[in-house]
């Protein structure tokens, strides 16, 4: 039961974008952690900065229908 509640909560967070920053950090850790190896290396975005970009990108293009 508790497991199901947890899974549901996880889905709600994922759907709403509540955990988008955590997902981004995971993505970052997987793909960009090699500091210094590449000239365009940058540290991960701050939560506020990530959220700004994420929200702006989410709203370009057709996002809602009739």
């Amino acid at each position, binding site marked *: 039961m508790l497991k199901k509640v947890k899974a549901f909560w996880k889905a709600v967070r994922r*759907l709403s974008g509540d955990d988008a920053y955590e997902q981004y950090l995971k993505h970052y850790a997987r793909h960009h952690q090699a500091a210094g190896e590449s000239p365009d290396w940058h540290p991960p975005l701050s939560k506020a900065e990530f959220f700004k970009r994420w929200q702006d990108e989410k*709203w370009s293009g057709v996002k*809602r229908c009739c």
Partner: protein
Amino acid sequence: MNKLLNNSLWLLIAILGASAVGGIALNRGENINALWFITAALCVYTIGYRFYAAWIAATVLRVDNTRATPAERLDNGRDFVPTNKWIVFGHHFAAIAGPGPLVGPTLAAQFGYLPGTLWILFGAVLGGCVQDMVMLFLSTRRNAKSLGQIARDELGPLGGTAALIGTFAIMIILIAVLGLVVVNAMKHSPWATFTVSATIPIAMIVGLYMRYFRPGQVLEASALGVILLLLAVAGGRFIDEHETLRGLFNHEGLTLAWWVMAYGLAAAILPVWLLLAPRDYLSTYMKLGTITLLAVAIIMLQPNVKMPAITPFIDGTGPIFGGKLFPFVFITIACGAISGFHALISSGTTPKLLSNERDIRMIGYGGMLLESFVAVMAMVAATVLDPGVFFAINSSAGVVGANAVDAVAKISAWGYPVSVEQMQNLARQMGEATLFARTGGAPSLAVGMASIFGSAFGEGMLALWYHFAIMFEAIFILTTLDAGTRVGRFMLQDMLGNIWPAMGRTSWMPSVILTSALVVSGWGYFLYIGVIDPNGGVNILWPLFGIANQMLAAIALCVATGILIKSGKFKFAWVTGLPLLWLITVTSTAAWQKIASTDIRIGFFAAADDLADKLATGVLPAEKAAIAPQLIFNLQLDAGLTMSFVCLLWLIVFDMLRVCMRYLAGKTVLPLSESPHSSSRLVEEWVRD
């Protein structure tokens, strides 16, 4: 043994489905239980999904689960993100399901419950779901490109331009008609007006909260917003009962229309995070929550459908909109059966999240099935009302007369008895001054939902449920309105940018203000005319929207059919070709009738001529004579628009046929723009966690 069990289960579902569909089709008694609708829908959907969709995915499209999707290949952690299929399904459904599947079935209920229901079920399973799924597949195979880009790459510049113009046109008409629905729901209703206006500052509070106070805490901010929204619904009663405050929110349709336009302009210019994004969160929660609640209530309560299966209005004399069953039921119900707009979400947006091609069936086909189910519930909510009440709410004053006594006499004479007292009682229960001639579908849907919720969860709160339902419809209508205005602005900036590059810069304020104002005046014009039209405006705008939406669907199906043939799958081209043929027939017939019919309730030119004659002979009362020139011009404009839609449609059909003929004759055509196969390396566990 297992196989036998499996087969008998499917046989059972088929028999159950067939008897439910047969039951609702053949019932000619007084009442039929809404549970039959739900059963028929679920069985038809299950069979369509299990057999037809599976066959299309495996045999026609040949989805390949070893192939890396754009989300995997172009993963950037922000917009291209391989995502769990249930999450993608949620995003996709939230994006495709708007107010369309609620309004269309409500209006089409004037033909009785049967024609609309059958079209919703079979149109979805054989047409709409197929379109969504095939477009999702094609875009996934093409780096998540949009419909317009795919059309340009595969058919040529003509196809691309047609898709672009079609999208822009449909956006303008859609926003106008949705604006009209909201205005009609708020007209002289201080409670509704207050609740709907309150959604704007509430959205801003939520926006500020998640931008500055607690950045990124989406759920906290949304929970706050939902609580505030519910308080605003309850607070509306206080406003309604307060002598002076009441006056602040009690307005004519026209005043409200100007406010809606001002709001649209502001929303297109203000940054997304302040208004658009937070409003979208709230509307998505409200949408998912209310639809679930409605499904639970219908299953718990099992209300009886009181509307007859078929009404005499199939002959074209219907009070809500003129026109015969064929083709107008197929135009009126676009969203819920087949909707061209979905092709814009299925291409470009959803593929950026798709982690594996095997999920295409569930997300594309399944997402549309769920929207179709929403349309069935809207049909139930409209038809559980007494037919007399339904027609009294939805017939405009221009058709049944502005006087309540005349209106009930006329509606009762059609064979749907209703009395003034009954309507007054109902209005009082719902906390409204009157429910006569509240066209647009939102008020009657709200009354239907309120009576279902009221019986399932407590009678005492009918007025609260009614205004909750109005708020629920208004909030995502306004979301479509501001998101649509913004998209229209981007498209316009893009087009103007070709002529004058500075206009194409999306952050240059003069360009932003100019293009936003142009888009708002585009839909604002139709909204204005709709409000001053004594026949309610919805009767003109909704069919126009339906034609535009079906035209966009036909464009998408043209692209899909062309690609199937170009990929050497000629023998399967009927999968998209037959729905396409049907849409061409329906759209062209409807457009022809709207242009050429001599019936003034159908033909635009006939209505314009009739009005011009009346104006010339001086039989119009003064207030009608004053607006007659505007109405005449508008009718002619609508005729011109309809004509251009249908020309655009035939142009792209011929373009597609040209490409296909060339391919079949072995001549050169544009190459398939499918991106090459690269193997998926996603480790199952982490994506599908």
